[in-house]
């Protein structure tokens, strides 16, 4: 099949990312030609600041070298500037005469730095800060000259100033307004920032308007301001903003309005011509940060590949200053307006300033100075639109957890040395991560997980990894607004759940064909999730897809590191009788179990059981009245209890029986992630109910119900839901909460992050304000249990799924 011709004008990060995305989904659709005006292949422009500061080299920051283009069959023309587009004949022409024909054209002409239109702006030594050429000029100047004047106290200007100072120059920053970085910061934070930078040796001239650049023998020697004052300057860097480069587009009659105007699929008014990156104006906004541009690239590639399902609707952005030692973060609508309110924490002496902007109980903007490690958390709350009313009085203090395991108590990545361990599950240091980000061109947390394994196991160092990304890339790190389920689709978990419900999809092939899955067999992330969503939405219709379950749930045991399994029978409410103890002891002896151990869930574990022995062992246990403890599943695990009024002198309720009743009602049910309950007999809470997904505490007048606790990697105490009086109410509320969780949470989301994401206020509205809805959820839970409450061990002891436990063949030695 003859390939279509795709030509790209521009060879920067946004454009090349579009090509990468396109090659991933439609590698053979186009013959691709790229024209770049610079002599370099694609490099990470964001990291020019660290190159200037001497922290990285140009070689480090190359993203795609010329070999990459060759390997992918892309014709690359470097040092060729396209000067004309002939839209009628569909050709482009470079200044040197080279031309190319196109079926589709991408304009990725980026932006031009704005040069102040003052006399002397063409003198030697007057430059902008945009590309490698500029960096070379600055490094050169720093070796020969003394005085550097940076005009423009925004992100880029301050990073340039910092770099030149580190190279030994005497640096002065000139700013038009009285407040530094007034596009991101409010006046108080600006002042704190200025002070910190002055302590680093930078000089500031605020409220000064440049009138003229004074030269001698063709080179700049001073800057003169409108108020008559002057300052010596051997090097003048103009960092006063960028303007989309629309010259070429305009010359071809393409509609521009400060940028090249595009629609939600990145097309200009000429549908064969796309525009991407900084040169673009989308819904009135021109972006200068890379995260939105990468989102645009994905949509553009999608459309070029003729999939047509992606739309770009704009981005919320965050920025972080990349100056070592300065913590500064801002996101969203940090200035606020009449219908917003501010939460403020200001400690000037302590060098700390945090402003959170709220609207209708949602976070819409944030400015953090001095301590920015919570930046990503606030940004997440903003993107998810979480109702923060339950968090309001703690919001300013950050994402506090009672105790975090696995990263040595470190919460500030910036303070860590390169040799410090960040990921303790996989032994990854901070230096390893920074190196990977820079040399491999990583931009997201997923990239970091894939290439370094950091945050890929337990996830406790996720916050640290995100900080390292922010810090290395500046505000350029940004998780997408809503994350797709996996690489097989662009749909999010919530979108897929909704589609399953609304379009009555009842099988995995149904879902994949209806929603346009990119891989017909899915992947280990989406198949188990889809299976769960299907059986939880349509319990009586959807069939459980055995091969889409993790091994633990197929083999009904926990796989151990040597391929043997652990067997944990259910002990209701943590109570046990002598017969059950004997049964377990006998089973352990009969099947030569290497180790027997008590579990945290108040049960007994037999470890080291060979897979082939499982059905026989289960049959043995079933004969003695024991059933599966589901210790291996995304399912109801345990209901722990403390003794309560049966025996305890403090017990005010019969917690053991309540626990047994809860367990008998809920065992066998599948959940988005493991689910643990506990019942305590009095507020002393000896069963630790307040770190459970659903915790019950006996009180004199009845029972306290608690939700969303977690005792693992990120300890979270429960939120109090309500108090009830009867045991029947406890059962109803427990089932209703569990059912709502099952129907609405994302697969692999524990109740703790779910409650934090949707907000306690939402949970209360469903559980407390809507008695009918609660009763209906209770009913749905019981109906689902009619299908799913059964012992998988007994079935398998009788021969179900025999193939799972028997070798295909044994070849004699």
């Amino acid at each position: 099949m003859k390939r279509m011709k795709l030509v790209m004008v521009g060879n920067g990060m946004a454009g090349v990312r579009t090509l990468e995305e396109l090659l991933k989904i439609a590698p053979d659709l186009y013959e691709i030609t790229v024209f770049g005006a610079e002599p370099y292949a694609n490099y990470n422009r964001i990291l020019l600041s660290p190159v200037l500061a001497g922290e990285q080299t140009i070689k480090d920051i190359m993203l795609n070298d010329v070999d990459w283009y060759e390997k992918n069959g892309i014709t690359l023309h470097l040092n060729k500037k396209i000067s004309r587009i002939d839209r009628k004949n569909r050709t482009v022409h470079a200044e040197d005469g080279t031309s190319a024909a196109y079926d589709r054209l991408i304009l990725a002409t980026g932006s031009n730095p704005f040069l102040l239109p003052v006399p002397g702006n063409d003198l030697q030594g007057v430059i902008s800060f945009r590309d490698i050429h500029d960096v070379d000029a600055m490094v050169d100047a720093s070796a020969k000259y003394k005085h550097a004047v940076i005009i423009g106290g925004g992100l880029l200007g301050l990073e340039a100033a910092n770099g030149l100072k580190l190279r030994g120059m005497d640096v002065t920053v000139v700013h038009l307004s009285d407040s530094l970085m007034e596009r991101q910061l409010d006046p108080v934070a600006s002042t704190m920032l200025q002070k910190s930078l002055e302590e680093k040796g930078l000089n500031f001239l605020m409220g000064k308007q440049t009138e003229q650049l004074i030269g001698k023998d063709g080179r700049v020697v001073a800057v003169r301001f409108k108020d008559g004052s002057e300052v010596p300057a051997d090097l003048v860097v103009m960092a006063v903003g960028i303007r989309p480069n629309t010259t070429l587009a305009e010359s071809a009659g393409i509609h521009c309005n400060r940028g090249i105007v595009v629609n939600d699929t990145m097309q200009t008014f000429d549908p064969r011509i796309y525009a991407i990156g900084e040169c673009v104006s989308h819904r009135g906004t021109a972006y200068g940060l890379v995260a939105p541009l990468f989102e645009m690239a994905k949509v553009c590639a999608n459309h070029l590949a003729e999939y047509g399902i992606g739309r770009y609707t704009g981005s919320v952005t965050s920025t972080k200053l990349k100056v070592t030692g300065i913590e500064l973060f801002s996101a969203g609508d940090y200035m606020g307006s009449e219908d917003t309110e501010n939460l403020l924490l200001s400690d000037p002496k302590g060098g700390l300033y945090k402003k959170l902007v709220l609207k209708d109980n949602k976070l819409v903007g944030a400015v953090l100075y001095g301590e920015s490690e919570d930046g990503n958390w606030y940004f997440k709350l903003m993107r998810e639109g979480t109702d923060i009313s339950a968090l309001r009085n703690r919001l300013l203090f950050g994402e506090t957890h009672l105790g975090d395991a696995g990263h040595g108590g470190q919460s500030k990545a910036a303070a860590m040395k390169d040799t410090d361990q960040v990921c303790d599950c996989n032994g990854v240091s901070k230096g390893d991560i920074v190196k990977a980000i820079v040399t491999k061109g990583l931009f997201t947390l997923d990239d970091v997980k894939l290439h370094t394994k950091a945050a890929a196991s337990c996830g406790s160092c996720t916050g640290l990894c995100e900080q390292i990304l922010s810090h290395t890339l500046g505000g350029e790190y940004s998780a997408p607004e809503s994350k797709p389920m996996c690489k097989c689709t662009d749909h999010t978990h919530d979108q897929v759940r909704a589609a399953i419900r609304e379009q009555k999809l009842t099988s995995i092939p149904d879902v994949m064909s209806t929603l346009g899955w990119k891989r017909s067999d899915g992947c280990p992330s989406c198949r188990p999730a889809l299976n769960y969503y299907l059986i939880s939405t349509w319990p009586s219709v959807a069939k459980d897809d055995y091969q889409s379950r993790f091994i633990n749930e197929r083999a009904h045991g926990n796989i151990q590191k040597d391929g043997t399994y652990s067997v944990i029978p259910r002990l209701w409410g943590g109570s046990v009788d002598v017969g059950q103890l004997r049964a377990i002891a006998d089973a352990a002896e009969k099947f030569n179990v290497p180790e027997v151990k008590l579990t945290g869930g108040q049960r007994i574990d037999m470890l080291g059981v060979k897979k082939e022995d499982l059905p026989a062992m289960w049959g043995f246990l079933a004969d003695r009245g024991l059933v599966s403890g589901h210790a291996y599943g995304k399912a109801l695990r345990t209901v722990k209890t403390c003794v309560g009024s049966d025996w305890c002198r403090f017990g005010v309720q019969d917690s053991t029986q309540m626990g047994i009743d809860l367990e008998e009602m809920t065992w066998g049910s599948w959940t988005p992630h493991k689910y643990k309950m506990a019942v305590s007999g009095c507020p002393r809470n000896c069963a630790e109910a307040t770190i459970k997904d659903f915790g019950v505490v006996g009180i004199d007048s009845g029972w306290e119900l608690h939700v969303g606790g977690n005792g693992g990697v990120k300890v979270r105490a429960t939120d109090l839901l309500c108090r009830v009086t009867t045991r029947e109410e406890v059962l109803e509320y427990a089932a209703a909460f569990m059912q709502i969780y099952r129907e609405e949470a994302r697969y692999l989301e524990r109740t703790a992050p779910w409650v934090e994401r949707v907000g306690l206020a939402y949970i209360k509205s469903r559980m407390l304000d809507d008695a009918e809805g609660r009763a209906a959820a209770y009913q749905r839970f019981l109906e689902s249990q009619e299908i799913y409450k059964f012992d998988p061990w007994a079935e398998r002891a009788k021969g179900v799924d025999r193939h799972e436990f028997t070798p295909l063949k044994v070849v004699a030695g």
Partner: protein
Amino acid sequence: MNIVAKKVAMNEEWIEVGVVSDIPKDGARVVKTPLGDIAVFRNMQDEIFALRDKCPHKGGPLSQGIIYGKTVACPLHNWSIALETGIAVAPDEGCAASFPIRMEGEKVFLSLTPNEGYPVK
């Protein structure tokens, strides 16, 4: 991706291990041999593959993993291994020996000599 050449010596024994329907679609069964277990996989297109049942990472039983497309994800730490070659999917590095499979109608035959380029044990 280069597919490793399948070279089987003339006097090699082919062992009949079962029929296609013995193996679940997107599933695997284990053949126990004196030199260790071999996992025999069947994907959704009914293609049959055989790999040493030992993940190059920490020795996990690949036969217990989730199969998707022509890949299996190891149940222990989720490494993805290509079924055709036994080679781990980048950026992970390593491989599990790949064994020749021959079909006669529905019957599946396995050779215990790994494909060229792979160690015997």
